[in-house]
Structure formats: C-alpha cells, structure tokens
C-alpha cells in the first residue's frame, strides 16, 4: 500500500521548508505568548571536581532528576564557542560536550546535531578544532552545522518589534534545543549562562561578526526574545571551571566543581547566579522573562546538591558590583 503523501512524519515535516515555515510561525506566536510556568521548576546540581570525572554518569543522574525525555527527538546541542583562548575557560569544555552527546544517545534521541555560530570569528570549524571538539566528540564533522552560515527563515515579533529576526532552519526545525553553556560573568550582561548562549544561534551571515544588531536591540530584550522563540529547550551549564571578572573572554578561571541542568532555562540560570553569588533578579534578561516570583529560590526545586554545597562567589567587575547577592 502506498503512503499517503499527507501523512509524513513530524521530523520529515519539520525538515521540509513548509515545516520550518510553520515552526517559525508557531515560534512567532509563542514569542508573544509564552506561558508563565506555575509549577515549581526542577533544577539539578551535580558535583564534578574535574573534567576527567565520569561526566556521563553525572549528566545521566541530572537528566533523571529533571525528568528529561529525548527518545525519538531531533536534538540540537548548542555549545558556547564564542572564541577559543588557549588555556582560558572561554568555551564549553570538549569533555562536557562529548558527555552531553553521549547522554542524548543513551536517551534515544533520533538525531543529534551540534550547532554553533561564534560571535567574533568566522571559521567555526577551526574554532571547533582548537576547542578539541573534533578530536573528542565522535563523528563531530558529520553532526556539526555552522549556524552562522545555515539556511534561514524569518520569525516575526522578535524583542517586541514588528520586524522579524532571521534564524537558522536547523535550530527552528529542532524538537529540542539544548544550550550547553559555560558558567561565566559577562562584562555587558552581568552573567552569561544557558539563555545568553542562545546568541550563538543568530546567523552571522546576516547580522555579522559580532552580532551587533542584538546589542542595538539591547542584550536583555534580545536574550529574552530568543528564549521565547525556542519553547522546547534544555539547559546544561558547565560550572566545573567557570570564568570570573572581565568575562566572557578576558576573565580569570574560577573552579566551581558543578554541573547545573534543567528543563526551565530561566530557573537553571537563576540557580547558577545564586551559586556565583549574583542576584538573578538584577540580571536584566532574567527579569524580562520571569513573571513576578517565578525565579525566586522557593519556586525552584533544587535536586542533587544544594546551592550552598557548591556556592562559589565569582569576582565581578566594578560595573556589575550592584548585582552581588546581598
């Protein structure tokens, strides 16, 4: 019996141009109406003293604690590869990225894509090489998409404006976007964690290197706008060794010994802020995406280690001393 041409699978549909167009439209509606989560968000904190620990085991326990399901999904894993500075904790560590890929294999993901669009340099595959990704992550080249130079589709209603933003079809067509960030301070935003990492999905081919358009719109509204466009996300923050001071590139290494993960990206970032000694409500993008009280500590269900067990105050530049958790 021949297949009904209208009865295509969801993944095939999303891969088609029509699928991406519909996904962009849905994203547009959600960008304006993303519901406020009423239930307590689960965020897992796992101790990991070094990158040679069994990170897959840690992530597996964290995924179970957060109820992560990925069977049959097309998963886009988005590391932070803004730049590579030898010896400095600027990018997501290769061992963490490899462990995340293995986690989603174990969870039965149908397809695992690794995508990134670095903000300063154009040769993304070279940066991936320098970061050790091509050496450590199995089949890296086959899985990798340069989001700076991908096919694009328009999503309307970005950051409260009538004009749209063009985003990679690979990201819009994913069932789940997994932001795998490094725990860092940020000299313009205060902190860069899972949500700010979404800047890397914005295509440089259109917005440039750096993606200055996002700064013109405003970092806070841009992060919030991107967060609202991608409703199905999971956040993993590499805090084994973070960056303090003049981050995200020129700061100092700050060992914290923790992996933080969860399905609610704002709750994960708020938890990371508390670990870093930062008041999450003083980080503009977290304030913009949160309903009153939504990222209060009592609204987040901490699983695994308590915050106090891994709390590591990160040094802040003078411009951001006001965000210090009182």
């Amino acid at each position, binding site marked *: 019996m021949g297949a009904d041409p209208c009865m295509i699978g969801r993944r095939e549909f999303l891969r088609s141009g029509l699928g991406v167009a519909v996904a962009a439209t849905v994203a547009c509606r959600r960008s304006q109406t993303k519901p406020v989560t009423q239930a307590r968000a689960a965020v897992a904190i796992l101790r990991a003293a070094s990158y040679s620990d069994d990170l897959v085991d840690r992530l597996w326990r964290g995924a179970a604690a957060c109820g992560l399901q990925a069977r049959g999904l097309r998963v886009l894993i988005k590391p932070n590869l803004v730049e590579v500075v030898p010896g400095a904790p600027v990018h997501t560590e290769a061992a963490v990225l490899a462990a995340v890929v293995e986690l989603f294999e174990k969870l039965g993901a149908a397809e695992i894509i690794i995508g990134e669009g670095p903000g300063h340099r154009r040769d993304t595959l070279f940066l991936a090489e320098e970061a050790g990704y091509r050496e450590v992550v199995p089949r890296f080249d086959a899985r990798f998409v340069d989001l700076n*130079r991908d096919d694009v589709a*328009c999503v309307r209603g970005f950051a409260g404006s009538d004009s749209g933003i063009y985003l990679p079809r690979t990201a819009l067509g994913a069932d789940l976007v997994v932001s795998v960030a490094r725990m860092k301070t940020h000299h313009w935003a205060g902190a860069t964690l899972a949500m700010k990492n979404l800047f890397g999905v914005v295509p440089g081919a259109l917005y440039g290197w750096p993606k200055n358009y996002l700064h013109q719109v405003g970092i806070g509204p841009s992060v919030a706008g991107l967060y609202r466009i991608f409703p199905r996300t999971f956040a993993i923050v590499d805090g084994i060794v973070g960056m303090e001071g003049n981050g995200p590139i020129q700061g100092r290494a700050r060992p914290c010994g923790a992996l933080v993960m969860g399905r609610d990206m704002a709750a994960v970032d708020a938890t990371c802020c508390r670990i870093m000694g930062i008041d999450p409500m003083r980080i503009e993008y977290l304030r913009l995406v949160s309903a009153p009280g939504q990222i209060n500590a009592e609204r987040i269900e901490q699983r695994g280690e308590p915050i106090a067990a891994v709390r590591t105050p990160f040094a802040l530049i003078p411009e951001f001393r006001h965000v210090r958790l009182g």
Partner: protein
Amino acid sequence: MRAASQAKLAAAQNADGGWGYFPGKQSWLEPTVYALLALADQPDGPAFARGWKLIRSWELPCGGWRGCAAVNEAHWATSLVVTLHAALDVYDGAFERGVAWLVGLTGAEGRPLSRLAHWLRPAIVEFDPELCGWPWQAGASSWTEPTAHAVMALRGALGHANSPEIATRIMIGERMLLERRCRDGGWNYGNRRVLGADLPSYPETTALALMALAGHTSIQWGTMLNHVERMRRETRSPLARAWLSACLLQYRGERPAPADMTGGDDVVVAAVEAIRWERILA
C-alpha cells in the same frame, strides 16, 4: 591549486545559479559573489552566466542587494557586488545605485546619542566616534570587515560612479581602520580596547584590513607583509590562510605555495583562494 578551486566551485553551484556557504545549502550573496569573482576569467561560461543572472535579480529598489532569496533587506555584501561589477567593467545603473547605497550607509556610533554615551564613558570601548566606517547591517555600528570591503569597493568605483562623496568615505574608512588597529599591530573584528584591556588581533581580519589600506603611508609594508607571511605559515584556519594568501597576492603579485591544509567544503575558502586579487584590486 586555482584550477582545483574553480572545479570545486563549479561542482557546488546551486540550481538557482548561486552558491551557498557549503554545497547543497541555500544560495547567499556573499559566497555567490566570491564564486563569480573566482570565475571572472570565464565570463562566457554557463556557470558564470547563471550566477550573474541570479545576482542581478537580487537588486533591491533601495540600491542594495538582498543577502539571499529569503531575506528582503539590503545586505552588507552589496560592497562585494560593487567590486564584482568593477572587476567586469560593468558600470551601469545597478552599479551606480549600489555605490550610492554604499556611500549612504554609515555606522551608528556617529549618531548623537551614541556619541554622548561614548563621551560620558570613553573607556568602555575605546574608539573615535568621528570615524564611522560601515556596519554589518543598517542601524548597527561599524566594524572591520564590512568597512574593509566597502573601502575596496569604493576604490574600484572611483572615476566610474557619479558620487562626489566616494573619496571622502574612502578616506574616513581608512582612518577608521587605522584607529581600530590592535596594539599587537593587527586587526580583530573591530574593538582594540575594551574596559581598559587590549584585545588581540585575528589573522583573517588583519589580512582584510591591509587589503583595504592599499599603499597607505602609515603602514610599514615590508615588516607587515613579513608578518602576514609568518601568520600564513602558522595559522591552522583555512579561512585565515585564504585571506592571508589573498593579501600577499595583492601586494606581491605571486600566489603563495599551497599549504598542507584544505578548506574542506567551505565555498568561501575555495573562492577566495581562486580569485585573482592582484588584478581585481590593482
């Protein structure tokens, strides 16, 4: 090596006549113009004709060119289209409109509010707001790469386009590039010093800035080109190596020996390696 790059490009052309950044991907303006510049010595060939037809169909009423079929906005790579027209000696209405669009586009850091913010806190990002180059996108600040391409394009338009402002914009663009030069002597994306800390340069943007600063007397060219040669030997980035080779080709007229490294399926790398920069920027 050049023939191999051209063959790679011919195989990567899309059905619509353009090129994506990678084979099989959506056609974009930037890789399409680079591919056409690489094939400019074969203008009667079918690949060139199809690509040229697509490019010409992407001109917008504002005088700029769209970045790809899906984007209905003028794109920074309009400067590359102007360079392509000059390389082909096509000085028609589309060329004139492209030059006018380019001359009319300037970085947002020159706006009164931006200047006030910079005046109040000049050490946040150290630069001279009087010297506005070109942005990646209208409404944004100016940066190294779009400014370098715009300066090269307008220099090629001198004497062929009817705009009295071309020479002034070239001069300001050159001064902006010189003012954004990093302490290590090269260029990065366009910030040399932020929050009191010097930022390092990158090889690819250093090559592009030097290509735009053709013959400028403030550059010690012998020393700088030796530095370019050294960076080319040492870099592990195929894209950086391609631009450093283009820079050496422009100033020394000789194509450097191929390195033991391939750019994979990156269309821009293949095209930049195949372009006769010494002729186009002569």
